[in-house]
């Protein structure tokens, strides 16, 4: 087994003359919580979509969970979970039905789905909401459910694209507890966020500016290197150089 969960070398994505992701290179270790930071439009989502097999890279090399991104994309998909920026559970299905659906398409057996559903509902304290339509759940609950559903098939790596956007501080903290639990069980967590307090929770952080990875290291290292008080200051020092505006 490759001890690296994700290995990226000079990965690039161009849309016409616009280079969204410009030859990024980094590795993510197994079981690590890897923060993927950057201003809006820096190319985070595009990079993440490439790693999930939703978008073809223009050039560069990458392996995810030990499989080649170009040739073995469908094998990668069996081993990753993904939670997109857009809420992506079915609002007209109940909590239980959503879990069953996503578990089912990853090939889980009925017994496994049943056990998973039980675990998940208990873990999220949502037993009484099992048969509620997802539509009528509050946003924070939906995001937590969405995260749990992306882990339904016990993936090696989970990609989270701004999972806590618009969520209140208490729920955000609960959400990070869930992330820690997953990491503790050995799942690699690849997460983008705009909250700098969340960046402090990560094992390592990369900061993207204008499609490039400008800084990479543990929060402590970065703070020392940029002689900053906290991650917010590090981010500001880097992101101010950006040429690209908001999306």
């Amino acid at each position, binding site marked *: 087994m490759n001890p690296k969960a994700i290995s990226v070398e000079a990965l690039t994505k161009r849309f016409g003359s616009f280079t969204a992701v410009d030859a990024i290179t980094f590795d993510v270790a197994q079981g690590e919580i890897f923060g993927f930071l950057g201003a809006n439009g820096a190319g985070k989502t595009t990079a993440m979509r490439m790693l999930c097999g939703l978008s073809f890279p223009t050039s560069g090399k990458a392996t995810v969970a030990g499989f080649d991104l170009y040739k073995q*994309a469908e094998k990668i998909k069996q081993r990753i979970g993904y939670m997109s920026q857009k809420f992506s559970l079915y609002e007209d299905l109940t909590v239980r039905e959503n879990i069953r659906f996503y578990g089912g398409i990853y090939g889980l057996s009925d017994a496994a789905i049943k056990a998973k559903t039980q675990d998940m509902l208990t873990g999220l304290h949502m037993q009484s909401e099992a048969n509620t339509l997802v539509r009528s759940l509050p946003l924070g609950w939906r995001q937590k459910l969405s995260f749990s559903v992306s882990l339904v098939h016990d993936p090696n790596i989970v990609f989270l694209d701004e999972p806590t956007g618009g969520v209140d501080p208490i729920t955000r903290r609960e959400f990070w507890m869930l992330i820690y639990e997953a990491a503790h069980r050995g799942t690699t967590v690849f997460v983008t966020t705009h909250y700098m307090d969340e960046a402090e929770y990560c094992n390592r952080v990369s900061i993207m500016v204008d499609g490039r990875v400008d800084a990479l290291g543990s929060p402590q290292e970065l703070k020392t290197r940029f002689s900053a008080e906290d991650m917010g200051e590090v981010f500001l020092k880097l992101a101010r150089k950006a040429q690209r505006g908001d999306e």
Partner: protein
Amino acid sequence: MRVLRILLEKEFRQVFRNPAILRMMFMMPMVQLLIMPLAADYEVRNVRVCVVDFDHSSYSRRLVDKIGATDYFTLVDYTDSYDKGLSYVEHDEADLVLQIPASFERNLIREDKAGLFLALNAINGVKANLGGAYLRTVIGEFNQDIRLEWLQLPRTNPQPTIRISSINWFNPMMNYRFFMVPGILVILITMVGAFLSALNIVKEKEIGTIEQINVTPIRKYQFVLGKLIPFWVLGLFVLTFGLILSWLVYGIVPAGSLLTIYVFSAVYLLAVLGLGLLMSTLANTQQQAMLLSFFMMMLFILLGGLYTSIDSMPAWAQWFTKINPVSYFIEVMRMVVLKGSSLSDIKRHIGVVLIFAVALNGLAVWNYRKRS
């Protein structure tokens, strides 16, 4: 196949939770089958005639009585001013003006020859044409009648000796609805199938769930089948409902077997759904999908032979009907419902529509991209 089962389970749940789809499944057949056959009727009745009589003779009055006695004509007015007659036409109160000249009776008796003048309101070309033709027939009969009276005690039959009797095969009562209803059933199934399927995948694109599906190891054909099968079942359900309605309301019982209808419909629905799915892989929003399928349906339906006969279309349009699945289904429906054709009679139709089905669904699977 477990993945497919899971997909179907989800799709059916969503359909039954969507009141709009359920309402449409019942409302569309009812509205289309109850209203359209009554309105879309080509038989011309109630042609409004204004008679301008300058003669006021017993013959002119007999002619007018004869016209009024048929149920095709309604006498608007009996006057002696052509201007007045024309003003009826101008105000769209009359379709025809029949002018009887002053010397009609005298000329008829003395010279064996008389003229009549007919003015037609040609804004509604079909009505003018048919009304004019009916009126000529009535006048022709009137002519025969008076000739018969004048020839006293004929040695030989003075009437023309060729008599034509006709029999109307397959639709003996010449009931226009028998012709229209099977065609309308086709339109119904086509619209339900194409619109439901075209909107479905696009909806998942809009709400973002398709991304979540695309990061799973699901196979493209599984996903497309998972969309195809539910709407196929719904389509057959709408067909059943439509057949029951046309039996209850119009007393139409297919002369051929129901099995033939269902076999063809099953294949046909695959083709229509394939088209819908293909359109939904092309479109990015429900609005685009709607416009695209509306455009296609208009072409297919107007050139499908429901309203106008394919035989009288220009050559290029006839060529188009060869690649129009709707025209095959309309033909098959009329063949089976009215003529009682069997499966072996519609072999060719099934074959062609099957090719459409395979090609369109193949394109839909091919064009559905998990990765962009």
